């Protein structure tokens, strides 16, 4: 079991999806329950990961390695480290929540949950794959369920958004594919660990131009996913048009893949290029932070506002990564988690509003505090988390990022800190327009407050946001070794490590 556990974790949702195939399409309630149970089961499957994970170990754990395609040599190789652990857990957590949030979906229920579960397999696969080719496969496979989720169950402009999403992502990922192949041609393997080893031990020398190009290709794919200014315009559309579950997954997990990719590939594989381009990328991150916040401020649409706020927050993540020190990276990871939770919560809340009013326009709301006090409280909480109120986990992450960045560049950190001010403006302004004031539309007067199901969706997120804010070492201690490893690989371009024993990768 132990050695196949990661495979089980990856493919369990897929099995669940197959199971769904055998449930008649009319039995909607059964379908929902089965999907929920499967996703919960997946969460349960992830618990042992937490238990077995050895925080002290720097390398890959629970590794799994089989030959897959013999020519070119492609492996089915999985492995877990702190970074993937955190993101897998986040995925496994957000999926049942998304399932619950999709209870109100009446249209083509079966296919919906099918897509959701397939998507989960793809996402977890991305985080666990340690072979570049395998990674790419999971990375692309995810697109299709997401395309359908947006395209079938989305809102008015769903088709445009879906195709835009696909085009952007594919544009990036195909370039990444070129880079992956190129890297293979240079090193003779797709095995990430092997590539690292080969590069670090100087068995293969990339000239600087090659390194830059490869880095650029990888980076572009990830920057689009993150998304980093100016590659972000797919995000507002995709977020707004996606159904609630889609938005949650999109914001909660898919965006993280970009950052994950940066940490997993860009930094360790191309330290020279990373260091050379660090200022540029940091500036892009800064622009994202400020730009996202400013644009978010003037959005008339709740979801679009949240979407642009994601741009801003993910800018922090990239900034933290580009600090290239432990504090920054840890902060980035923490923000990823925090953003997944808080923005997830915000999208869920927006979805609940939509369920009631069938609109996302802020001007259609106002005065919701009267009919929906509980909802308003949760919305407040989520907004506060999102705007980075200490001691919630978002703030902790942002603070770490700022500290980390400050060490390398005072100006960057100062500008980024200003983004926090803007966050307060757009979040609170939105909150005020939605919740405060007199009721302006009669339709809002008779709304019912949150149901038990909706509470069950929101409470875990809320609790986690607080709990992780107070006890972030629960996370950071698990990611510490990984972060240190990444930094070691990044900070010492290819020569220092040559004299060390091989990383524990092979174990």
């Amino acid at each position, binding site marked *: 079991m132990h050695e196949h556990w990661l495979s089980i974790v990856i493919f369990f949702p897929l099995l669940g999806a197959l199971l769904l195939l055998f449930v008649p399409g009319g039995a909607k309630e059964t379908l929902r329950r089965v999907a929920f149970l499967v996703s919960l089961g997946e969460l349960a499957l992830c618990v042992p990961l937490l238990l077995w994970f050895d925080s002290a170990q720097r390398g890959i754990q629970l590794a799994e390695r089989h030959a897959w395609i013999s020519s070119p040599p492609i492996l089915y190789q999985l492995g877990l480290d702190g970074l993937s652990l955190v993101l897998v857990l986040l995925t496994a957590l957000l999926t049942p929540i998304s399932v619950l949030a999709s209870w109100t979906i009446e249209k083509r229920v079966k296919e919906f949950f099918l897509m959701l579960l397939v998507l989960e397999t793809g996402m977890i696969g991305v985080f666990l794959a340690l072979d570049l080719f395998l990674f790419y496969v999971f990375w692309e496979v995810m697109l299709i369920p997401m395309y359908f989720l947006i395209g079938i169950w989305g809102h008015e402009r769903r088709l445009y958004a879906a195709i835009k999403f696909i085009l952007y992502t594919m544009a990036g990922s195909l370039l990444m594919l070129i880079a992956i192949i190129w890297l293979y041609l240079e090193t003779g393997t797709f095995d990430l660990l092997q590539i690292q080893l080969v590069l670090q031990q100087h068995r293969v020398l990339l000239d600087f131009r090659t390194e830059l190009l490869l880095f650029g290709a990888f980076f572009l794919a990830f920057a689009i996913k993150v998304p980093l200014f*100016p590659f972000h*315009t797919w995000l*507002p559309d995709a977020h707004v048009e996606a159904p609630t579950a889609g938005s949650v997954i999109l914001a909660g997990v898919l965006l993280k893949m970009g950052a994950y990719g940066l940490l997993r590939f860009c930094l360790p594989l191309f330290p020279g290029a990373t260091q050379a381009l660090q200022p540029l990328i940091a500036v892009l991150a800064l622009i994202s932070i400020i*730009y996202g916040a*400013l*644009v978010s*401020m*003037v*959005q008339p649409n709740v979801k679009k506002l949240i979407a642009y706020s994601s741009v801003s927050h993910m800018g922090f993540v990239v900034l933290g990564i580009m600090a290239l*020190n*432990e*504090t920054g*990276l*840890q*902060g980035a990871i*923490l923000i990823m988690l925090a953003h997944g939770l808080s923005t997830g919560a915000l999208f869920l809340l927006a979805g609940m509003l939509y369920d009631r009013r069938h609109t996302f326009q802020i001007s259609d709301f106002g*005065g919701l*505090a*009267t009919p929906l*006090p509980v909802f308003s*409280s949760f919305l*407040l909480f989520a907004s*506060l988390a999102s705007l980075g*109120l*200490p*001691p919630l986990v978002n*703030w*902790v992450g942002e*603070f*770490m990022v*700022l*500290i*980390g960045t*400050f*060490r390398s560049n005072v100006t960057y*950190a*100062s500008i980024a*800190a*200003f983004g*926090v*001010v803007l966050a*307060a*403006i757009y979040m*609170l*302004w939105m909150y*005020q327009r939605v*919740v*405060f*004031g*007199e009721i302006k539309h009669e339709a809002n007067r008779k709304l019912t407050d949150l149901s038990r199901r909706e509470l069950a969706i929101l409470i875990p997120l809320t609790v986690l946001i607080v709990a992780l804010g*107070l*006890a*972030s*070492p629960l996370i*950071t*201690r698990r990611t510490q070794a990984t972060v240190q490893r990444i930094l070691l690989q990044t900070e010492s371009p290819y020569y220092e490590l040559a004299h060390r024993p091989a990383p524990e990768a092979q174990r």
Partner: protein
Amino acid sequence: MLELLWLVPILPLVGAAVLGVAGRRLSQGAVSAIGVGSVGLSFLTTLGVGYAFFQLPAAEIPVLRTYFTWFEAGALRVEASFYLDQLSMLMLLVVTGVGFLIHVYSTGYMHHEGGYYRFFAYLNLFMFFMLLLVLAGNYALLFVGWEGVGLCSYLLIGFYFLRDSAANAGKKAFIVNRIGDFGFTLALLLLFRTFGSLEYNHVFAGAAVMDPEPLAWSQAGILTAISLLLFTGAIGKSAQLPLYVWLPDAMEGPTPVSALIHAATMVAAGVYMVARSHILFSHAPFALMVVAVIGCLTAFYAASIGLVQNDIKRVLAYSTVSQLGYMFLGLGAGAFATGIFHLMTHAFFKALLFLGAGSVIHAMSGQQDIRKMGGLWPKIRTTALTFWMGTLAIAGAPLFSGFFSKDEILWQTFVSPSLPFGWALWLLGLMAATMTSFYMFRLVFLTFHGEGRYTPETAKHIHESPSSMTAPLVILAILSVVGGWVGIPAAMGEALHIPNYLEHFLEPVFAGSNAILRAQPAAHAHSEELGLAGLTVLLAAVGFGIAYTFYLRNPQLADQLAETFRGLYQVLVNKYYVDEIYAAVFVRPLNWISERVLWRGFDVGVIDGALDGSAERAQRLGDWLRRWQSGNTRSYGAWVALGALALLTYFVFWVS
């Protein structure tokens, strides 16, 4: 008892949690019991802790309690730790004490309001954060409290969320505070970079061994930077120039909130924080000077606006801003203990004044305009009487608490060895004091004296408030009178053999700074100090006199004056048009740029435009291309022939 220190903030948090989750289903009585009880218990615990604290030998102070590691990453490690010394002890007492009284008062004041449980939940939450702010053992935790109180302030200002003005005010408060916190955050970053830690003991120890920086701006160093940034935070939180704009608007909140948060405790957090970081400031004389100048200007500026306001709470709000300015003036003069002293007395009398105002509003069925009041004195005696006490205290009537503290501040400013233009600041402060006296008595006269200008409808309902409200008034009135006696300045006290208890008590806290700032105390005669004090009193009396003349003896005179200096009057009434200027300079351009330039211009126009454009171009190219696909076989044949020709040419001519 010291082991129970953690209970002090936690109790209100528990109260808040219970009320927040279950409050809707609880009876009003139960809500009151939990809301007030938790703070009461917290107050009692504070007393117990205080008792134990006083027993401690000097060497064991400050008490440092570390509970767990809050977060860590790389070199950064922040503990959840509490730091208890004389300063925080004093603050604890003030906060829990005044807080408790206001809670009690609120049970009466909010009795008829909707959202009763919500109010107490917020209030309890506020207490938690405020206590956290006071007790925090490092800057990060302080920042939690700092932001937390801001949040509660936001919530409570916007308590009447149906009113757009309230919601706007809450938002404004939070955002303006955030601007200050921007500075604070940068200060935290700098602190960590400089000292490698955010824990007080590390930072203070580290700063103490550094060389004081020179006064000149050009030679200022890292400590000045940190201090100024910290002070930026304080400017936001304590409503100093230029970020004071939120506080007057904050009066949209329920009156007890104004008393607790926007007068007694939260707004003083900036003062507390600067005092807490005194060692940094004392090493950065330039920063100290800035503190003093800003404080002094604010004191004067806010007082001048207060002169003409007609809303009872707004007058008090501007007064608060002004008084906070005094506190900063004191701190800036290097007299940290004095600043704190004024903080304490201000907490008493300003809480009293606000609660009194609340009582008046309560009696007047919600009316807040003093032009529509008058002659209330006989109808609500307790309120009036206690309000008088407060007014006397703030105006600086001798022997009242404000007299000692304000006077001490002015004196310290005058003699401060670290301030280059002490006398100028003193002069401004003095003028502000005069204005204070004027607007306070104007307020009193217009409210309680003269003839009633209210409608008969209102008149029917005028009644004295319930005892739950008057009792705190009385207690606070007593404190406003006697509260100053713990810090009687040496010049006055020595003769009577009354020591300055407070200064003694706080002595160990500020010892490090005093050693720097007052290494050579300037020789000033007590008589000089007494003389200046006399001058202050005199001017206060003048203020009283003018107010009496204008508003009791000769009411039309005020209007004539306003007519005469119409321009000035308009400027004052409109608060120097600062809100409008901010809107025109920052808010609207930012909005415009964000919407027109960034979003619709760049995002939709340029980026999406470019991509949609290229999609469209591809489409058009495809359309163009398929027109070649004309369906005419001859054309196809021509293509083939053309291709063959090209190929042949390529193969044979270009290659060989």
